[in-house]
């Protein structure tokens, strides 16, 4: 095996993409801030979290480059992290959510 010095030539993302992502993130920030000023009732929490998740996805996919990652394993690792967090939250709520059922 020769020529390993160039091995790290990973995918270089065009500047434009980064800027576009950045603009989208800014817009989403403004949107979520603005929406919080309107009373949407119970929906407002859902809206806020959906927007936050959208932003997080943008960061993960583009800034952190998961979209360009070749290794499947990394994806598995990330999904595992989210899945375990969900276990913690959902099963905790299995207690709190049903305490009043008596």
């Amino acid at each position, binding site marked *: 095996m020769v020529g390993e010095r160039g091995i790290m030539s990973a995918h270089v993302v065009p500047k434009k993409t980064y800027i576009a992502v950045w603009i989208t993130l800014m817009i989403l920030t403004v949107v979520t801030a603005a929406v919080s000023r309107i009373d949407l009732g119970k929906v407002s929490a859902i809206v806020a979290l959906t927007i936050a998740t959208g932003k997080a996805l943008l960061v993960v996919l583009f800034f952190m480059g998961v979209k360009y990652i070749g290794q499947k394993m990394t994806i598995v690792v990330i999904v595992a992290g989210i899945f375990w967090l969900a276990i913690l939250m959902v099963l*905790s709520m299995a207690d709190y959510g049903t305490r009043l059922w008596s």
Partner: protein
Amino acid sequence: MSHSPAVVTHDQVHNPALQHHFATMEQQQEASTMGMWVFLITEIMFFGGMFTAYMVYRYMYYQAFVAGSEKMDFWWGTINTVVLICSSLTMALAVRSSQIGQRKALVVLLIITMLFGCVFMGIKAIEYTGHWKEHQFPGTNFHFEGPDPQHVEIFFSLYWAMTGFHALHMLIGIIIVGVIAFYSWRGKYGPDYYNPVENVGLYWHFVDMVWIYLYPLLYLISHKHGG
């Protein structure tokens, strides 16, 4: 298998950054990236504990959380969100510069990232001082006018704990970005070896992401619903 003390063969050929126990640069790079991601999921779980606490208490004491959130400074929170997003952009561009070997841009971008980080910390400090002065630090200091002060205190406990640990992560982030900036200036990273820059970037973006959730959860619940 023969046991003649053979010399490990690849040592002479390679990149100085290749550590002895890896066979190839590729293996080293993959290991390091994977290690970083595994580390980040431990961070997810670390913050996850607090997010769970937040969820439970918000479910139990919703009104108090609204009351607490009303005491947050909407503008500082929003500005800080913007600051962090900008810092993520510069960080992403920094990694890109290292990939294509633009040393000067890399150093500059890293420094800008650090500056954004410092701005964030500065604003956080202003907010913290404000909350402290307003007796919004839990414990003996705490005082709150309203129907349910106790549970507003829980909100503030979580606020301080969550943003506090986040700020701690920011601080660590600023320091390691600084270190990386130093080595970049010394020319350690380039297209053939930029893994450390990339990993610091991942960390930085992760910390940004935590804030992306903290922002709506702490600052933006200020509107009552229902009766």
